[in-house]
């Protein structure tokens, strides 16, 4: 049973919940380790931003951003369908 080779492919979805600022991200994987859902996996290249392998599984909890040691390195963005409208008070 142990000879099974394992692979993963990025599973695209209609949204793009997590994006990295490649210049700011230090590739420490704090976000990968904090994500309760395992949406992220470490990059094959050490020091690079994690791969958003399962974006459709994201619960938009923000744990990745909360754990990130570099302000602005990760951005969480709601799908277009979930952006609540706000207007000036009347």
């Amino acid at each position, binding site marked *: 049973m142990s000879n099974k080779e394992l*692979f993963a492919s990025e599973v695209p979805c209609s949204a793009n919940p997590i994006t990295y600022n490649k210049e700011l991200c230090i590739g420490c994987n704090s976000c990968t*380790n904090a994500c309760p859902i395992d949406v992220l996996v470490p990059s094959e290249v050490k020091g690079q931003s994690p791969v958003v392998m399962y974006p459709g599984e994201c619960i938009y909890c923000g744990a990745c951003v*909360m754990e990130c040691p570099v302000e602005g390195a990760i951005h969480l963005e709601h799908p277009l369908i979930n952006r609540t409208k*706000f207007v000036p*008070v009347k």
Partner: protein
Amino acid sequence: MSLHKWPYANEIGREEHLECDVLVLGGGLAGCYAAIAAARKGQKVILMEKGATKRSGSAGSGFDHWESACTNPGSQVTPKEVAEAYIDEQDHYSNGIAHYIECREGWDRLLDMESFGGKIRDTEDEFKGAEFRDDETKLMYAYDYTNRYTLRIWGSGFKPALYKECQKLGVKVLDRTEATSLLTKKEGDKIIGAGACGMNVRTGKFYSVSAKSTILAMSRPARVWLFNADLPGLCEFRPFNSIGSGHAMGYRAGMEFTMMEKSVRGEFSAAGRSYPPYSTGNNHNTWYGATMVDARGVEIPYLDRDGNELKSVSERFNPAKGQKFFLKGGVIDEAKYEYRGPETMPFEELAKRGYKLPFYADLSKMPEMERKVIWGMMVGEEGRTKIPVLKYYTEKGFDPEKHMLQSYGTGWQSANFLGQERQLFGAPGGVITDWNLMTNIEGVYAAGDQLYAMDCGGAASATGYYAGRKAAVHASEIAPVEYDRAQAEAEKERLLAPLYTEEGYSWKELNFAISKCMQNYCAEVKCEELLNEGLDLLNTYSEDIVPKLHCENPHDLMRTHEVLDILDVSKMILEACKMRKSSSAPLCFQRSDYPEMDPEEDKKFLTIRLENGKAVRGEIPHDYYGDVEEMYEKYNRDYIEEEAPKYYE
């Protein structure tokens, strides 16, 4: 789309056997408190968590108010009063044992949290002088400011604090390890817990754990009726990982459940008909008391229980004249007259009076402290709000003094679901226990969302700790239970099978099919023939589709195991629905073939368990747990005499 080499170690086929006194399955609030309680009693504890304990579970990213801490120094109500009010409010389809534990020990657990480094007081005097704050203790209250039994708390720091405390106490935390089955031993009719099996969801390594006591502290079932293959992470209210594996493994092992026939019309599915929780203008829960306005900016009146319009914001937070206290919170929608708190005028009346949609939450019209506590503290500390709501909308330019946030639909849920789009929400079914929170499987306990009719993080924390100390006592009194290697072997084979199929169905395709089946055959109005059709279809999935499930790595294997659990839970729900031969308002249960509502002879808990592959029906009277205060005190002399006093010195 590129193919990646799996980034983690390949441990498929490898296994490890562990032994402990107390095994906790699920590392949310309930599981962490359970582990802490057992470790404090000197037991060797293992905690198995599918995600990362530091941020997993329903309160992983936060938790803004702690309900029913009736023994906090400001409280004007007793645990018995509030627990009995909940029982009455829920027409006795209520978990009296768990509610009383929540009311009686919740404050003790908050003080524990403070000792772990969690913030439960306004120590920076940010809200000094606010009506909801006690300036001496610096505690901040929500909902009923007269009776002060629900606290506003800074829960975004709670899970990291609990995780740290677990480590400090020597709890062995197995993160990224899904619990998949209970190990049991049969002695005649008796089933005895012997531990559990699990799998590392990054490496595929298999675990079997022998334990004298096991605590189920996982979530309620989800993704039963609601599924979205594109954005599955948003299709339910609870986090995506939380799908009721504890229910499934308990059911497979012969555990007894109740109220599994109850489901409600969907309230949250941000992959479809609603927005992410707490992200829209509303006046419920986290947003309770918010000023709502209509499209013209005209304020929507709040009414007291007698229909009188309230003149001030303060009146929204205080009982009506002649009312001792009111109930508000996660499971309270439209409370009975006796417990009903202030609420905005019903939509039908607003429409008659010419109020125009859409509505908005307009915090600018509220006193500064009330505005600041909703937007900035509650929205910020509640789960999934600090980054995705507070930070995100602030970055987009939202200013609560200048803007109003839109509400969708006509009520606080900001959603319009169809009758067949159902959820286990609002005190749903789950495991039934005795006063030790022990299930019918000896040595196996349940806590938090795993219990029937549960809700709220305070209840999860209090029942978790309680189950932990009871499980510790049990473990200290018994000899190790024999480990049945054959059970573990069979489980390992079941878990790994989808990696070795040539090709086949994905977990998503099966989950989607189950949810369609449940929408078709277990919808708002049920009948015997449709329920049988549903069971028949799910059985064909078990026989024909399950052997053809296929995946390529441990992550997808975890998702596949989840759907196998959803399949078992869905069958349990269909069987439970068949067992109730009448309709019931409190259970949101309608049968076209048995339309009579709540006949006297059916006002009882129906239980369901699996025996030799067949669902077995049982009955338990509503008042099986007796007088909540008397029974609690009978079962907890040790805690009352030795542990509780130190919280009240």
